[in-house]
């Protein structure tokens, strides 16, 4: 009897499991489970990659990146990609550069303004409108015009909220101002933006507006001088996603007036009218954003100007627990799930599941040296002296210490055992695909003899005698970072048992507190990772600037000593490269900077990050664009039934 029951139960379980796997659930709907969240649907507000997933799919831009290319573009709302050859990029005799974008006609937003009997405008979905209703669309109300394009850029700049939108300010001012507040301060004799006189605010607006002009069906951006990353910034979803001016004004946003823009400067998220609603011209519409259940539903826009998407709906849900995501993928309730790297091999062998692996990313991981370090009550530096029980605050100012650390790291073991051979060692700030990257540039390798040689020279030989104790920090939940520090810890111990590296995992808030908004950093050695936000290595968001500029992202975190080194050795070359438009001139300079980062051992560059996706096997069409950090453009996705 028992045996019979067991057999029957097994048969039921097997049948249920196989039917669950074989079935295509939710045809036409792409269910996307991740652990992240979208911050806002306002293109001018967002700055982080997960938030770009929303804006990227509901709005359109002038240009799009061409598939997975990071320096090539294709037309979108602009009918052509500006170039010197087609005459849409022009250099003026005064050194100014203008970019002209011919604007496509007939691009409608998801909702359009219909003029009612009393002249009142009501916003209705364009899909499903009858011809009679379409004839009553108020001109400009829901049709992307050159004026909307101009308004979009002005709004992103004047809102000043997102550092990614502020990149457009840098484009327009060719790097003179990093945000609108700086511009106002400069014009107003140093007065803060909130205290600036109305005439100063108007003056800044007029200057800005004069640089973004509309002529017929064309919009022209006039830059005071060359800014090589211009098209890269224009094709990003941040700030440059085109909004409809009339609609924004109708929902309580800025109406485009030069006298009122300050009222919309840096709004709180809750006060931003575009935070939870959209009216873009992208392939999907925001159907529902249930923030309580952290679920976003996008619905296909059938009148998308490039033709309707294959998917009818996309459901993006935040599911923090990996096992739950995994089971939903296996049962077919989810089509994509974010997956911890250690499960890739197992899932790649599972029926019905597809793993696309080894996708490149323009993102480098490293251990960041900082000096001088805050020496007041800082447990990270122990005694604060070179006595074996701590380190002096300027420990990493000694180049032999930095080189010793770099030779003490076992990169091969990390790449093979921790990263499972899926990526390559990082060669410096610029990674594969970015100008200045050369596959034969010098890199450090594990070499205890060389490490010992440098350590013996450090601090006039005293370091080798006394040893050291220091604490390195890693964000909790980053096992690869902990592994990198453990490998270094072991390497150092083998070289000299008096070299003691302690490892501490901390929440992001605590790590940030040790590096940011303080006179001196409190962490001497930190595991972090950064990547550029456009393909050009120069400019404010470029890879070389992020790492090697004294005013760059890394420089801001790792101390005055590091910044001084960058100022003295690296900045002249960065400026030289940025001043030129000619790739033949610029490439060798960035390659030189890359080599110098090795020579000066500025950072322990570990590995290039890599991407992967795990989907049901009936999902196709994913395009990995490195500069968009692999953000999902659902327009190209197909789900077979």
């Amino acid at each position, binding site marked *: 009897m028992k045996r019979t029951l067991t057999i029957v139960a097994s048969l039921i379980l097997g049948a249920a499991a196989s039917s669950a796997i074989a079935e295509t659930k939710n045809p036409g709907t792409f269910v996307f489970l991740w652990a992240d969240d979208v*911050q806002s649907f306002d293109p001018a507000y967002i700055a*982080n990659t997960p938030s770009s997933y929303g804006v990227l799919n509901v709005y359109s831009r002038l240009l799009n990146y061409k598939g997975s290319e990071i320096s090539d573009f294709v037309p979108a709302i602009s009918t052509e990609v500006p170039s010197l050859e087609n005459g849409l990029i022009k250099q003026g005799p005064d050194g100014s550069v203008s970019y002209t974008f011919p604007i496509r006609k007939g691009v409608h937003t998801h909702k359009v303004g219909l003029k009612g009997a009393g002249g009142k405008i009501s916003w209705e979905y364009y899909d499903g409108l009858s011809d009679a209703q379409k004839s009553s669309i108020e001109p400009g109300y829901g049709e992307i015009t050159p004026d909307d394009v101009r308004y979009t850029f002005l709004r992103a700049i004047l809102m000043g909220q997102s550092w990614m939108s502020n990149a457009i300010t840098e484009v327009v001012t060719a790097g003179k101002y990093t945000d609108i507040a700086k511009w106002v301060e400069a014009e107003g004799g140093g007065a803060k933006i909130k205290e600036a006189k109305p005439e100063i605010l108007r003056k800044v607006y007029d200057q800005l507006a004069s640089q973004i002009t509309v002529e017929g069906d064309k919009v022209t951006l006039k830059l005071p001088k060359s800014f090589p990353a211009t098209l890269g910034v224009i094709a990003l979803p941040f700030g440059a996603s085109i909004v409809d001016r009339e609609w924004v004004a109708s929902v309580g946003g800025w109406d485009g007036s030069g006298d009122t823009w300050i009222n919309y400067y840096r709004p709180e*998220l*809750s006060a931003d009218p575009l935070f939870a609603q959209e009216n873009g011209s992208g392939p999907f519409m925001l159907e529902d954003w249930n923030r309580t259940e952290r679920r976003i539903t996008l619905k296909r826009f059938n009148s998308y100007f490039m033709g309707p998407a294959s998917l009818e709906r996309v459901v993006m849900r935040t599911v923090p627990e990996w096992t739950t995501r995994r089971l939903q993928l296996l049962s077919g309730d989810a089509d994509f799930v974010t997956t911890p790297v250690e499960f890739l091999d197992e899932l790649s062998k599972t029926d019905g599941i597809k793993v696309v692996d080894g996708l490149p990313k323009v993102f480098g991981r490293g251990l960041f040296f900082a000096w001088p370090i805050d020496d007041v009550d800082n447990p990270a530096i122990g005694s604060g002296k070179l006595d074996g029980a701590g380190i002096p605050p300027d420990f990493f100012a000694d180049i032999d210490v930095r080189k010793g650390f770099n030779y003490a790291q076992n990169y091969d073991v990390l790449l093979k055992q921790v990263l499972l051979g899926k990526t390559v060692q990082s060669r410096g700030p610029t990674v594969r695909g970015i100008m200045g990257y050369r596959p034969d540039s010098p890199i450090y390798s594990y070499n205890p003899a060389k490490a010992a040689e440098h350590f013996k020279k450090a601090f006039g030989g005293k370091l080798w005698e006394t040893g050291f104790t220091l604490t390195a920090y890693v964000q909790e939940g980053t096992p690869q970072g902990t592994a990198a520090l453990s490998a270094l810890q072991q390497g150092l111990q083998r070289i000299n048992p008096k070299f003691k590296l302690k490892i501490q995992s901390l929440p992001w808030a*605590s790590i940030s507190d040790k590096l940011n908004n303080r006179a001196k950093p409190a962490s001497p050695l930190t595991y972090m990772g950064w990547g550029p936000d456009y393909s050009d290595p120069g400019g404010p968001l470029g890879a070389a600037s992020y790492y090697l500029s004294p005013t760059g992202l890394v420089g801001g975190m790792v101390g005055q000593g590091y910044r001084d080194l960058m100022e003295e050795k690296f900045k002249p070359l960065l400026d030289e490269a940025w001043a030129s438009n000619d790739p033949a001139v610029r490439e060798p300079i960035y390659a030189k900077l890359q080599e110098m980062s090795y020579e000066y051992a500025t950072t322990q560059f570990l590995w290039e990050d890599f991407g992967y996706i795990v989907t049901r096997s009936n999902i196709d069409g994913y395009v990995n664009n490195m500069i968009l950090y692999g953000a999902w453009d659902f327009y190209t996705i197909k789900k077979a039934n």
Partner: protein
Amino acid sequence: MLNYAFRRLLMLPVVMFALSLMIFALQMSLTPTQRLAAYAPSPDFLKGGQESIRMLIEQYGLNDPFYIQYGRWIGNILTGNLGWSETARQPVGTALASLLPATIELVFLAFFPGLLLAIYLGSRAGIYLNRWPDHLIRVFTILGWSFPVYVFGLLMLLVFYSALDWFPPGRLSQWAQAVVASPSFVRYTGANTVDALLNGNLSVFLDALRHLVAPVVTLIYVNLANMTRVMRTSMLETLRQDYVRTARAKGMPRRVVELHHARRNALLPVATIAGMELAYMMGGVVITETIFDYSGLGQFAAKSAANLDFPAILGFGLYFALVLVVLNLLVDLIYPLLDPRVKTK
């Protein structure tokens, strides 16, 4: 009785004020950069550099002294505004109000059947002391107690979702979600089962119920042991009382003595434990909600704490204080109903 209840409720603002001061004091022990984590929860948000960080700190007034920040918060509270939660991307009050029905739905479906089952099993175990029903019940409940919620929840998912596809995680299937989100479906309460019934939509009701089965069974089973054991012990003690012996001696039927005389009096300690259990569950069952992908107060509170989202933490703290005070009061008021000898003074 009313006077007593009123006096107990008067304590509520004092408790809430003290709690808010404590949470605020804890918050102020962190630096402004740490508190910025609520607005910049990952390194991505700080790529704007030091200037951007300083602007954010200034924008959100994180450098202001304690009394100014507290004054700002309490001023908002007095106007009915609990602040903005960056975690929920909505006002704290709205987040709590929209998550509460989901938590109530889950907790009530788990708590009341669980309580009845515990009372039943506990009294049976007490009546059949050291006989096979007692042994069976003890093993069954201790087994549930020994299971970490995490393990039992995952087992439930593996068997009843992954293998059988009976009870999926989440709150609704995609198709039901579309129905609920449609304009024709009226959201009366926010509880899917109740709203489905009120809308006369049986298929959505059944779907919502199907999604509730696994978390409800998990909660019932892992929480069963505590109340069952208290009930069993209390029942044993009551069965040894003189009045029970007298009743039996007078020839009263055994069933009447056990169920009507003994069990009612044995309920007092269970009421105390049950009140605490309900309060705990109303605070959110974080692990159960996380495993079963069930958006409730527990997940929200845990994520807010991890993000140092202080308006949300404070708002949740006030909510939980309210739940604790009210449920304790309710338990106190229930005592005399269970045992008329207990008078509230």
